[in-house]
């Protein structure tokens, strides 16, 4: 192979991310599948976990396990300190002003449901509107549909271009006196588009409208600063940012969270309970009913520690290189068409292969050890917009390499072999 390709190159003289060392931090990446080295390109579904996270969870259960916020004994105080320590790490990670603005939830999905339910119940009435975009994940559509139906409100949708981009003009004239909240994805899971969140927040705030940002796909790819974005709510999932499943974070501005009623009732979220009346705890406890996912929060804290040691300039440079290289190589494959071609993209590449359904593509490349997602990616409206039943999606993390992209392209050769043409 002596072909030269018009793809970005990393200049050897400049510092680069030490990918080999980072890969060694992730035990699962050494797995073999169907006799071939695993090429894991489904990071937008869930990322792999560094040893530091796995060990933090084990260590917690081996040395610190006790319920939090309850016991007066040493072990409980120890567990509480570790759990609240994780909250402080999450605060620093998102650059929130105060740790009490950090609510631990199960996932981004639960974070959105919390806001839709609690904010929606008190702020939405008949004729009011919730504004979302055409590229939302089902988790940022369905909770709003449910609360809109309950409150007699209307869900409105910001359209997108054929490249998968939103325009600020389209957003601005949909912000009306009836709009009570905007809920927008930061980075699209199926298209990779990075949305201009800060600008959208400024437009919405100019009309006094709060904004929730679904940050599930942003957190693994870029530093997030909720004060710089000035969003009212921001929510992430631990498992997509190299932490455990079952834990996520909802950030909310303190004044917003204080004005909202509880989402779930139970232990830990009360100040006093009688059969006549219950008074609620202050934030964040008000929104954390029941024993929380203590081990998960501590694992997420370990993931944040891991991420904070990375040089994010180098991560961004590496992922830009992967995006450019993989996009160019995929477009060389006969019949491949990229879906989602925004100017500002994270390293998420959706594509279709002419005449071959995405599930067949997924099965065939899996035989070469290449794990990609196929289907509608919980974004059926996006599939409808692009007129495809499903796409194949390769999503890269900082531990992926150009060789991973090469393996995908080689495996796609088998698709032609099987289907002919």
């Amino acid at each position, binding site marked *: 192979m002596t072909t030269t390709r018009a793809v970005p190159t990393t200049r050897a003289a400049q510092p680069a991310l030490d990918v080999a060392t980072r890969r060694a931090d992730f035990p699962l990446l050494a797995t073999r599948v169907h006799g071939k080295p695993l090429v894991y390109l489904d990071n937008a579904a869930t990322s792999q976990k560094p040893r530091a996270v796995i060990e933090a969870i084990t260590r917690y259960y081996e040395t610190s396990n006790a319920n939090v916020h309850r016991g007066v004994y040493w072990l409980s105080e120890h567990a509480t300190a570790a759990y609240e320590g994780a909250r402080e790490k999450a605060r620093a990670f998102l650059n929130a002003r105060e740790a009490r603005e950090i609510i631990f939830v199960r996932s981004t999905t639960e974070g959105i449901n919390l806001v839709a339910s609690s904010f929606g119940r008190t702020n939405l009435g008949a004729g009011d509107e919730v504004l979302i975009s055409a590229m939302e994940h089902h988790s940022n559509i369905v909770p709003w549909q449910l609360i809109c139906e309950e409150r007699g409100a209307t869900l409105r949708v910001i359209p997108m271009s054929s490249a998968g981009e939103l325009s600020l003009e389209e957003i601005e004239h949909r912000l009306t006196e009836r709009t009570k909240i905007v809920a927008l994805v930061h980075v699209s899971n199926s298209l990779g588009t990075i949305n201009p969140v800060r600008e959208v927040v400024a437009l919405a705030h100019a009309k006094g409208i709060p904004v929730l940002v679904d940050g599930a796909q942003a957190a693994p790819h870029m530093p997030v600063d909720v004060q710089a974005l000035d969003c009212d709510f921001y929510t992430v999932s631990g498992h997509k940012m190299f932490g455990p499943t079952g834990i996520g974070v909802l950030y909310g501005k303190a004044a917003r969270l204080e004005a909202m009623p509880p989402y779930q009732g139970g232990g830990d979220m009360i100040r006093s309970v009688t059969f006549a009346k219950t008074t609620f705890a202050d934030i964040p406890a008000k929104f954390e009913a029941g024993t929380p996912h203590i081990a998960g929060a501590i694992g997420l804290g370990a993931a944040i520690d891991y991420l904070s040691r990375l040089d994010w300039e180098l991560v961004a440079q590496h992922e830009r290189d992967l995006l450019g290289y993989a996009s160019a190589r995929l477009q060389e494959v006969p019949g491949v068409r990229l879906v989602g071609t925004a100017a500002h993209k994270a390293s998420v590449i959706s594509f279709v292969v002419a005449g*071959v*359904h995405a*599930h*067949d593509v997924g*099965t065939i490349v899996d035989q070469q050890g290449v794990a990609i997602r196929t*289907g509608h990616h919980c974004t059926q409206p996006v599939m409808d917009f692009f007129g495809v039943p499903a796409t194949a999606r390769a999503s890269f993390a900082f531990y992926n390499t150009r060789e991973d992209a090469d393996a995908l392209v080689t495996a796609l050769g088998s698709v032609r072999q*099987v*289907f002919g043409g």
Partner: protein
Amino acid sequence: MSDLTELYQQTIIEHNRSPRNFKKLADANRTAEGYNAICGDKITLYVRLEDDVIKDIGFQGSGCAISQASASLMTNAVAGRSKREAEALFRAFHDMVAGGPDAPADPMSLGKLAAFAGVRQFPARVKCANLSWHTLRAALVAAAEPVSTE
């Protein structure tokens, strides 16, 4: 490639490319819909049933090669058969792809349907092969709800 060629046998590739009985029956007296919401495979089945015999059958749909070829080969296999014979084929096919207790010792007894014998090595794809058959069963009992095999 060997596992792949067992899954994607030429018969399947060919029926996916040129599905048989890909038509809406104007005089169908039974129809049913199959839809796997998670993967998006869709089948609408049209049957003209007379005296418990499948006099004519057609389908329309979209989805992966396995689901579409399965619908095509199924319509060929059950056309002209009685409900009872179609049910027996359903069971034999289901057990062949899902590895059930009645899996035919010799899949070739299923004729061209034996092309799907490789599916059992791919558990994630069994539901693709089964969708049209479950849809047929729904059509024959005149079920109102769409069928899913997920």
